[in-house]
């Protein structure tokens, strides 16, 4: 029984389903924790019923995408066979699921954080936009560095660590944009757009390695039983494309939302 997915370890890819019990427990744990958290709020703490449903839908969607990235077939394909699928996994875990999970919490959740001053202080230190930007980009660079990725992907603990690093990096990155802690200064929309835009255009070293290296960078994918019609190098170049264009696309979508919200709030204050 495997708790978490690892690299292929010499076994050829087939479509036989494999259970990853650790992933199910992890997702279940998050779902239960969220449900218990929501139960602490009186109905009056919610903006209204529609808002409540919206938060729950966002959280459920985020959790579903997280589960999709961590379980069969995306996880074994991404951890053992195709660098391009590995990059899809990264996109889901670090860039798409975290904002949805954060949107799953009502304003009251963020207000409640003031009851825990130490946690609040730690969060404040790590999620200041400049710090969050640095943390995210350092983690993403390190967790795509071939010399580190190959040994990590050969063990369940290693792949768990990689997945968690992406998730934490994503939560830290999106926190300043989504988590509205009332006691903190507002992250102004113009700076939010700059924050997202910069992250969309920044070129991290792994991108260069993946796109321009003459030979496959990751032993994991080069020495995995090949999937017909693919070569390790072309798959790696596709991974570089997904990393760059995928990140840029997510940032553009987020910028559209921020801009739209900015325009709406300007109109409200004018009225």
């Amino acid at each position, binding site marked *: 029984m495997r708790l978490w997915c690892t690299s292929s370890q*010499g076994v*050829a890819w087939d479509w036989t389903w494999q259970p990853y019990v650790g992933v199910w427990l992890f997702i279940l744990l998050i779902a239960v924790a969220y449900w218990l958290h929501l139960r602490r709020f009186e109905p009056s703490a919610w903006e209204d019923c529609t808002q409540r449903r919206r938060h729950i839908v966002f959280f459920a969607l985020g959790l579903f995408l997280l589960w999709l990235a961590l379980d069969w077939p995306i996880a074994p394909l991404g951890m053992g066979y195709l660098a391009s699928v590995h990059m899809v996994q990264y996109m889901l875990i670090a860039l798409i699921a975290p904002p949805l999970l954060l949107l799953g919490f009502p304003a009251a959740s963020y207000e409640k954080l003031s009851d825990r001053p130490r946690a609040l202080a730690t969060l404040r230190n790590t999620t200041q936009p400049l710090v969050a930007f640095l943390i995210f980009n350092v983690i993403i660079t390190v967790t795509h560095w071939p010399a580190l990725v190959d040994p990590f992907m050969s063990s369940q603990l290693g792949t768990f660590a990689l997945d968690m690093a992406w998730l934490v990096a994503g939560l830290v990155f999106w926190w300043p944009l989504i988590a509205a802690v009332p006691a903190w200064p507002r992250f102004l929309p113009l700076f939010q757009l700059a924050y997202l835009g910069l992250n969309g255009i920044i070129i991290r070293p792994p991108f260069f390695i993946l796109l321009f290296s*003459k*030979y496959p960078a990751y032993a994991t994918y*080069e*020495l995995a*039983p*090949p999937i*017909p019609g693919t070569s390790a*190098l072309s798959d790696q170049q596709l991974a570089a494309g997904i990393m760059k264009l995928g990140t840029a696309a997510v940032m553009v979508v987020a910028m559209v939302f921020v801009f739209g919200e900015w325009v709406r709030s300007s109109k409200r204050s004018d009225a």
Partner: protein
Amino acid sequence: MMPRPQEKVDFTLTDTEGEPFDFRARTEGYVTLVFFGYTYCPDVCPIHMANIGAVLDDFPLEVRSQIKVVFVTTDPERDTPERLRLWLDNFDTSFIGLHGSRDEVNEIQVALGLPASVIEETEGGEYLVGHSARVLAFTKDNLAHVAYPFGTRQADWAHDLPKLVDERWE
């Protein structure tokens, strides 16, 4: 590096065109990579062939033309010459595929210091063929000074093969 260089062995098997292939005569003066495997192999064989093929594709013609790759099937029942040719063409159309009886091929492997291949039954009446994962690299002096295990990467091949061509393997 091999502790003691392995001498070439004289043998003649059938190539994928159905013609006899005299190994020593046809590889004389070339760097020759020899690998024993089979086309139904789920892992080692396609990985080795794909990596060697990708690297050779990148070499200048003057280096590329001095290297031959010989793949000897350890599964003569299933690897028909046609299937062998089709499979090798996935990696490089210049790869030489050789076919002989199981006993002949096992004798050659043992003479080259490799273990004889063994049949491993699997579910549903199918079978795998256990075989050495090493690629023997014969240089122009007809000796294999180096053997490449499974796990050899494209960067390793790209580094080593030009050196073998220039007879600089020390």
